[in-house]
């Protein structure tokens, strides 16, 4: 007899937890399958670039060239190659070699540089270059006799899915971060059986207001304090707009769909009035810190912000009284009221949160694009709602998970990115995305029917 490792009640509890997990986050499985699919179809030969390329080349070089030799670095004249050259030179010095060059530029430039090096009469042990540049260098080398026998070394290539390259994943995250942040507020709103159509317009309003204020406080010369103040004011304004929506919905019992449809028009109109219909881009370079910077373990700052917001919202919805009230109000407003819950306060709260997060989304967008324009966020409300619905939140209210929404947002991003990588044109992408939304809703319905 084998020893029993776990008692039966324990095992059923684990099974229960597993099945609970999949019923809550079954979409996670879909996301993983999508990632796997795109990883497989984008598997191809990869050329390392920049510092990675220098590192890869250094390994090969130390094995083949005796220490102390001079290594000539030849590159094209671009930013990536300059990073490569600098990293390689530093690495060579550390390993006891003498870096020469770097020589860079067009084939003509390179030829002149190579001839100049040859004329100096220094022995060159090896020429290091990128794969893109290798053919040109080999060609030129034959024309300069003293270098004809010198080995040309390039970083080794490797097979890896384009989809899973670090820069692509960062790209996916940056593309979805605005929608994902706003979807947190939308999830709360939809759990109360409401909807907020104004979030797309609030992106534009927030971006425009922030850009306008920065422009007024010095434009490209504005300081950090001014940028922070302008952004905070824009976010707060969007919070006030959410407060207004919540007030109209609770005080006058206007259906959320209609109330926020009106607010959507108002906010969009305001964005156009403030910006006079133009893009405002008199913004300091430092403003892109949030949208393009990556300070923590090379994670983009906006993604870190998104993770913090999701963590906070998840705790709010699962661990606090307010979260419990949000579910209760959405599940049965009258029962919630008769349980002593301040239903109106809860509803106003979720619309304020939705407004604030839409405002924050607008700031991220403005930071990514280093400008504010009234055209930002067009149709974003639909992507946000799609992320929430794909994430398993019921439009009838009372049911839904914050982390489900994160998964929903990433499903949208991965499908879009994957289709871009595999060359699906954008019109077709829309059709596919539409079917994905319908599929998610159908899956949810089937799951519920199966349970009953």
């Amino acid at each position, binding site marked *: 007899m084998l020893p029993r490792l776990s008692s039966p009640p324990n095992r059923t509890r684990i099974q229960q937890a597993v099945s609970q997990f999949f019923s809550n986050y079954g979409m996670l499985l879909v996301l993983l399958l999508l990632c796997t699919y795109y990883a497989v179809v984008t598997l191809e030969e990869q050329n390392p670039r920049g510092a990675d390329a220098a590192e890869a080349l250094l390994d090969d070089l130390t094995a083949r060239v005796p220490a102390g030799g001079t290594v000539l670095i030849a590159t094209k004249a671009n930013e990536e190659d300059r990073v490569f050259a600098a990293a390689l030179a530093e690495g060579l010095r550390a390993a006891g070699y003498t870096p020469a060059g770097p020589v860079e530029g067009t084939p003509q430039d390179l030829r002149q540089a190579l001839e100049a090096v040859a004329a100096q009469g220094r022995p060159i042990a090896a020429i290091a270059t990128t794969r893109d540049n290798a053919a040109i260098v080999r060609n030129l080398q034959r024309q300069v006799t003293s270098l004809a026998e010198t080995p040309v070394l390039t970083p080794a290539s490797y097979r890896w899915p384009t989809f899973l390259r670090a820069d692509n994943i960062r790209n996916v995250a940056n593309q979805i971060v605005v929608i994902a942040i706003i979807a947190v507020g939308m999830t709360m709103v939809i759990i109360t059986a409401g909807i907020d159509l104004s979030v797309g317009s609030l992106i534009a309003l927030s971006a425009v207001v922030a850009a306008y204020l920065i422009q007024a406080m010095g434009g490209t010369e504005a300081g950090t304090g001014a940028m922070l103040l302008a952004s905070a004011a824009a976010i707060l304004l969007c919070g006030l707009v959410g407060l207004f929506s919540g007030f109209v919905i609770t005080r006058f019992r206007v259906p959320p769909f209609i109330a926020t449809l009106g607010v959507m028009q108002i906010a969009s109109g305001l964005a156009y009035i403030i910006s006079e219909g133009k893009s405002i881009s008199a913004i300091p370079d430092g403003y892109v810190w949030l949208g393009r910077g990556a300070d923590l373990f090379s994670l983009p700052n906006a993604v870190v912000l998104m993770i913090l917001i999701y963590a906070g919202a998840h705790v709010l919805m699962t*661990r606090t*009284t307010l979260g419990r009230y949000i579910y*209760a109000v959405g599940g*049965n407003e009258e029962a*919630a009221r*008769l*349980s002593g*819950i301040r239903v109106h306060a809860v509803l106003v709260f979720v619309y304020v949160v939705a407004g604030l997060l839409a405002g924050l989304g607008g700031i991220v967008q403005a930071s990514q694009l280093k400008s504010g324009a009234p055209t930002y966020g067009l149709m974003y409300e639909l992507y946000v709602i799609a992320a929430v619905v794909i994430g398993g939140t019921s439009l009838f209210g*009372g049911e839904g998970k914050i982390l489900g929404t994160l998964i929903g947002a990433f499903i949208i991003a991965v499908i879009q990115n994957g289709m871009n990588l595999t060359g699906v044109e954008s019109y077709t992408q829309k059709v596919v995305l539409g079917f994905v939304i319908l599929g998610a809703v159908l899956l949810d319905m089937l799951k519920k029917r199966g349970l009953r």
Partner: protein
Amino acid sequence: MDGIEKSFPGVKALKGVRLTLHAGEVLAVVGENGAGKSTLIKTLAGVHRPDAGTMMLDGQPVSFASPHEAQQAGIAVIYQEFNLVPALSARENIFLGHERARFGVPDRRAERAEAQRLFERMKVQIDPDAPVRSLSVAQQQVVEIAKALSLGARLLVMDEPTATLTPGEVDRLLAIIRDLQRDGIGIIYISHRLEEVFAVADRVMVMRDGEHIDTLPRQGLDRERLIEMMVGRSLEQEFPKARHAIGAPRLEVRGLTRRGVVEDVSLTLRRGEVLGLTGLVGAGRTELARLLFGADPADAGEIRLDGRPLALRSPRDAIAAGISLLTEDRKAQGLVLMLSARENFALPNLSHWSRRGFIRQQVERARFAHYIESLKIKLSHQDQTVRNLSGGNQQKVLIARWLEANADVVIFDEPTRGIDVGAKYEIYLLINELAAAGKAILMISSELPEVLGMSDRILVMHEGRISGEITDVAHATQEQILALAVGREDKAEKVEG
């Protein structure tokens, strides 16, 4: 003979149930919630298909693939929730799907005449052109029956037909049933209300846990025996009333008014007292309860708790002051159906175990576990969705909720509606316990035996006013209450007539 026979040995959720119905017979089906009555009806109506067993109609074996086929065969079911389109007229509803049409156009005159005939046959007056929305519940029920008859139904199944009817309407319905019976229509009558079963049934079929316990003729069957068969054990008595010392006034109400529904109501509720409040549907009982709970604003009047005036602007204020309301409609006003039993239990009580807005789930689980044990709530785990519990267990979750709230004044609105006999008994014991602990209890109920059996004192409402008080409950009768419930003027007429 027009005999109809059906038997279903070994149906899923029905363990070898056997049912025989003769033409012109009323068969009552009784049993606790979950006994399999609904499954049985749905099988009969073609909603479910039996896994095994046979059905015979007029001696011919039949099998229905859909409700439509069952309807074609002459079987009509009137569910608790009617299948009527509110915006359409009574006539249009009756002939929906089988219009009396000429050249594809419904023949209104023919339909109207036939609808009139059907209504006359049932001795009711309903305008065939009135929209169903404007009809009373009882009238809508008649429209449903007329629809069944216009389809040529020979077997009528009625599921809890009297749950929302007033006593007068119940009598009229029972008269209609007797008429239909005379016309040779077989009727299966499902009800929790044993008085009606005794009033109308020829035979009574008892079900328990999906099994057919017995089918007996009504003659020679008594109430206690029937309850024992339903519950599967004997109950000492149906109403375990305990008497306690009644203390000082706790809740005093003076001149409470909400125009149109509650007029100038004054009452006093004492510690340890169970005050029964009854009346016809629409008399203003639930509306009064909502005023006392702050759920609706009052236009005039004063509420005092322990002598201090109370200003109730919301249920939140009432809960803070120590008043609880167990609502009449569990699903619409009490429960959040998609949440778990535990979350429903916790809703008004989160402040008991939260700190700075964070819920201490350990404490919450422990509290709920305590009530699961003491109230014998049957559930597979605390996080089970409350929707999936039986009516009795849902009610217990709500009772646990308000026990935890630890209110001094507890208002029960129809605490045993739609609940099986066993759970009813447990709820009565609980009411006793609360009274013994010095709580003041207002028990609203339409079931007169319950009001008489459980109250220390009874108030009767009629058209928004308190129409009478009965202090000597031990010697009061249902007739006495009914006379008060229909109003003094009616009563005077009756005496004269």
